[in-house]
């Protein structure tokens, strides 16, 4: 178990990829004014987070990073679409606002599923899963390199920030803009240098364009197949049956 990311999944990465793709496909297939029928789909991230003991803070932090982009996508909808589509008790909501809320919800669902995918399985195993699913090796290797480069960039940035803070007289100092800009420049140069050295280390150990992992994947129909089938069934149900409608009808009838 990784304390920072919770329990790692024993599910085959191919099953995880299939479920994630199916989830994103389901989420994006809803109409632009759909809100209530999206709500059952929140069960997937909630169940995965709870089952694998993932830290909500970590998940929340990562979602916050992409939130501005999500908001930006739907920002102009309320301006351009002012037609009232929802009226209740003298209060009306324009189509723009409904579609904006729908975009935000769908984006949050899609982004959280992608984050969960990376949190519950090591990235290299996910890449191996992609390779086994016949995704071109060139693409998979590029993904692996990109992942390593980002980790490397993060490590170098942390070192530089620590070095800066240690030479500042105040606790948790702010980095002035002119210093930050020069730090970003040297960060990129340092990251490229380190990436070059790592590439050399790979070359001297016989790297030929393929990263060969030693832990083979084993797809178990009982475990992985049923995992994918159960979630797939739930997604289909959520897409084609109005679960919130049925539930509210049932509650009102009682």
């Amino acid at each position, binding site marked *: 178990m990784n304390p920072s990311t919770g329990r790692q999944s024993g599910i085959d990465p191919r099953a995880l990829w299939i479920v994630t793709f199916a989830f994103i496909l389901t989420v994006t297939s809803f109409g632009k004014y759909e809100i209530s029928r999206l709500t059952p789909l929140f069960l997937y991230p909630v169940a995965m987070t709870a089952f694998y003991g993932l830290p909500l803070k970590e998940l929340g932090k990562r979602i916050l990073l992409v939130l501005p982009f999500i908001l930006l996508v739907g920002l102009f909808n309320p301006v351009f679409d002012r037609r009232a589509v929802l009226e209740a008790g003298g209060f009306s909501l324009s189509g723009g606002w409904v579609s904006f809320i729908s975009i935000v919800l769908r984006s949050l669902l899609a982004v959280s599923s992608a984050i969960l995918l990376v949190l519950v399985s090591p990235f290299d195993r996910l890449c191996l899963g992609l390779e086994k699913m016949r995704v071109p090796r060139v693409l998979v290797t590029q993904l692996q390199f990109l992942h*390593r480069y980002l980790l490397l960039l993060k490590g170098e940035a942390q070192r530089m920030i620590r070095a800066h803070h240690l030479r500042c007289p105040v606790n948790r100092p702010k980095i002035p803009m002119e210093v930050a800009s020069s730090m970003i420049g040297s960060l990129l140069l340092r990251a490229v240098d380190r990436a070059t050295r790592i590439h050399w280390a790979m070359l001297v150990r016989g790297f030929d364009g393929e990263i060969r992992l030693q832990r083979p994947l084993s797809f178990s129909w009982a475990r992985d197949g049923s995992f994918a089938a159960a979630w797939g069934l739930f997604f289909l149900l959520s897409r084609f049956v109005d679960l919130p409608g049925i539930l509210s009808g049932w509650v009102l009838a009682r």
Partner: protein
Amino acid sequence: MSHHFLEVQDLSYTYPDGTEALKGLSFRLEHGEAVGVVGANGAGKSTLLLALAGLVDPSGGIVNVGGTILGKKTVGEVRKRMGFLFQDPDDQLFMPTVFEDVAFGPANQGLSPEEVSNRVRQALEDVGAIGLAERQSHRLSGGQKRSVAIATVLSMLPDILVMDEPSSGLDPKGRRRLIGLLARFTHTRLVATHDLDLVMEVCPRTIVLHEGCLAADGPTRKIFGDQKLLETCHLERPLCMQGECR
């Protein structure tokens, strides 16, 4: 057997900024020989090793590894024979777990998974890091990283071992284990280091680099006994010799 020799003739290298790092170096290591490369910071030790592995293109000269002249077409062949340990273990470790990192080289040699696994276990046992096999490489301490980095090289069973500062970051027990390993390794060894005591114990012959030039090449004890040479090259006697009269 003479196929594990290493010969360098008139090797030169100039960095893109114009700094001459190597200036016409020539030497030869015979099969099974253990040679230390010493010199002050910036003397050209690391650059020399990088040039031997074909990681930087020399501006002149020849590198001959066991009869194969190092060039663009032969660099793969040379690297199969040569195990290279980098100065910074963070450069050497790039896989998610220690096991995968040590297995990276043997897997690229086309060995079966069982053979790879055996090699990994043996190499990790040799460096005293078998307990780290399932750990994440980037979460190890500096000394543990160094031990695992050495294992990544040993697992490939190289004919020629080229190491850049192999003892840096190791605790005394780890260093002692490394000395034992290097002493047991029967093939050709080239060790660039500031750890002169390690050189005294492992390498009967020493090459001294100074400002990119070959300042001296000879028996280790004789080199470290030459006070004038050591002072010129910004070195000092190993601790084990400091009690001896100058």
